[in-house]
């Protein structure tokens, strides 16, 4: 049982403010991913949960118990580090046993728990090796093994997969996920990789510049980004964004960009007197007939094949838009096409507040 309650958290290094009034609630047994660009404060927040960073103001509670001023060893947490932090002079078994030894667990129990964890992680035959004799993926497993032997309530992961190559990362992602299911504990996981965040999280916390931009289930965040930052940060390739102003065309309320691109007016038109930002994901931009109402004329500039999909970069007015379509040969470089964003998946943001409207 472990819920995490972060209330009014402040963090300052001298005059530099890292967070201000941060609030977050993590459910028991939830897998929460903190995601954001580097420097957004996600690692600092994780380290504050671990007790490795002082809290300037505010409280952190585990299960309703205030742990704000507790030392790391008195919080029932385990942490997996980006560079694994395996002790080079200790064997795998000793690395995994270290936390238990420090807590005075009996040798018999240590042995049994290390063996169990090694079994789960497929490390049994490596127990007597030293970290230098292991591959990156194996070291990663040892680092996790060291965390799980202690069976803590809260697991903290600080970008644990970022040193692995792409293929291994996909495997380990699944392993961490299944570990979560097996262990029934609360996971807080930090990454800058939105794919990791999307694939692993029960809920993701998108952070930027020391503030939480949005908290929600991955698809919820993807489908309804709360603001311009989340919209642009989540999703790859990034969402197309165009600045536009309300206007009237053919007697209809539309919004129009400076270079004359027009888009339908958002349905609930509250608060769109000033400027708006129109956003649509590349996947939601489609090729249409010339006569389709609202069709935008564009010229194909670049075509990229990723395998699964084909990315077509087109120029419409002064804007460069990205369109993602199913894999296909596309030979029409330089030719004109008409494109139209799917109105159901078009996002509108207030230009001033950058918040979602409609």
């Amino acid at each position, binding site marked *: 049982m472990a819920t995490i309650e972060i209330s009014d958290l402040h963090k300052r290094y001298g005059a530099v403010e890292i967070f201000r009034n941060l609030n977050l609630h993590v459910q028991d047994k939830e897998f929460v991913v903190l995601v954001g660009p580097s420097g957004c404060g996600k690692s600092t927040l994780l380290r504050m949960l671990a007790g490795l960073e002082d809290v300037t103001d505010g409280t952190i509670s585990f299960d309703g118990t205030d742990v704000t001023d507790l030392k790391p060893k008195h919080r029932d947490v385990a942490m997996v580090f980006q*560079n694994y932090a395996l002790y080079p*002079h200790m064997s795998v078994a000793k690395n995994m046993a270290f936390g238990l030894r420090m807590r005075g667990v009996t040798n018999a129990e240590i042995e049994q728990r290390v063996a169990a964890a090694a079994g789960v992680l497929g490390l049994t035959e490596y127990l007597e090796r030293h970290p230098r004799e292991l591959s990156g993926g194996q070291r990663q497993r040892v680092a996790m093994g060291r965390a799980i032997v202690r069976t803590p309530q809260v697991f903290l992961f600080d970008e644990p997969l970022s040193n692995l190559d792409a293929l291994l990362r996909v495997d380990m992602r699944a392993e961490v996920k299944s570990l979560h299911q097996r262990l029934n504990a609360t996971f807080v996981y930090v990454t800058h990789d939105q794919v990791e965040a999307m694939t692993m999280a029960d809920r993701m916390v998108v952070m930027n510049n020391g503030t939480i931009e949005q908290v929600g289930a991955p698809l919820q965040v993807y489908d309804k980004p709360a603001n311009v930052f989340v919209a642009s940060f989540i999703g790859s390739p990034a969402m197309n964004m165009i600045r536009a102003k309300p206007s009237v065309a053919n007697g209809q309320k539309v919004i129009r960009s400076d270079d004359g691109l027009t888009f339908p007016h958002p349905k609930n038109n509250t608060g769109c007197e000033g400027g708006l930002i129109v956003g649509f994901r590349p996947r939601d931009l489609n090729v249409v007939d010339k006569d389709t109402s609202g069709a935008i004329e564009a010229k194909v500039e670049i075509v990229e094949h990723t395998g699964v999909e084909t990315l077509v970069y087109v120029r419409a007015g002064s804007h460069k838009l990205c369109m993602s379509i199913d894999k296909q040969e596309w030979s029409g470089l330089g030719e004109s096409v008409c494109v139209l964003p799917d109105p159901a998946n078009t996002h509108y943001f207030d230009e001033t507040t950058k918040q979602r409207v409609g």
Partner: protein
Amino acid sequence: MTSVDNVALGHDAIDREQTRERRESFSAFALNSPAIIWLVFMAVIPIGWSFWTSLHSMNLRRPHRTQFIGLDNYFELLHAPEFLNAIQVTAVFAAGTIAFSLLIGLLLALLLNEEFPGRSLVRALTLVPWAMPPVVVGLVWSWIYDGRFGLLNAIFKSFGIIRESRAWALDPDFAMASLITAQVWHQVPFVTIVFLAALQTIPDEFYEAAKVDGASRLSRFFHITLPWLSQAMLIVLITQTMEALRVFDLVFVLTGGGPGDATTVLGWLTYTRSFSFLDFGRGNSYAFVMAFMTLLLSVFYIRLLWKRGEFAR
């Protein structure tokens, strides 16, 4: 080259390949020849010559009586009381200097590894003694120890620890301690720098992981810091042992081997034997025994520490 390659290449190709390899190894030797020649003339020949000399009864005061006597010099020194005494004195000196410079160097390195105002200045100042030539170190300390005007006497007298001045470096009870102190003072900066360099390569993550694992400050030191330093420790032990075994300059300036033979270390004995008595036969045999002892100790240290220090970094 595997046998499959050979078959595939055919004989001509193999010949060509071998010629090319020969040519390559020849040019490798040619390019290295200045270094090799330097080494042969500056190290190999003198060392060989020195060993050859050690197999002779050779005193330059009686050059016409030089003769080959095989290993007699070596057998003889095993029974020579002054040689055995020098080994004992050297061992005390080495144990004292190594223990104290290791301990003080480690403590200083730990201190200098912490953040505090003026740290870079203190770090720079710590190096000063090391930058001084041993002879100058000896002179500086000879003034500190001086029996009439020395700083040490002044300090001890002002605190009422002693009533009468002592010539510390010439006092039978304190000569060895004086010598050890001066040597430690001179060597501590090197030890500190080696340890500090090693300390600075310890990733913070280790300490953080250990904190999360529940390790106390003390167990973090013993389980992480100290094992990590074992390679640095090896370097320090070997260099300090060599420094201690070959010490000469400090003895020359501070004690002259005295009082009596209280500070007659091997280096000093070898010097007097060779250059005061011009007894090059015995002097060279002393030098070889010294070198051999250093070698033995180094092998011992490496056995002891090398494996522990082999990290995947």
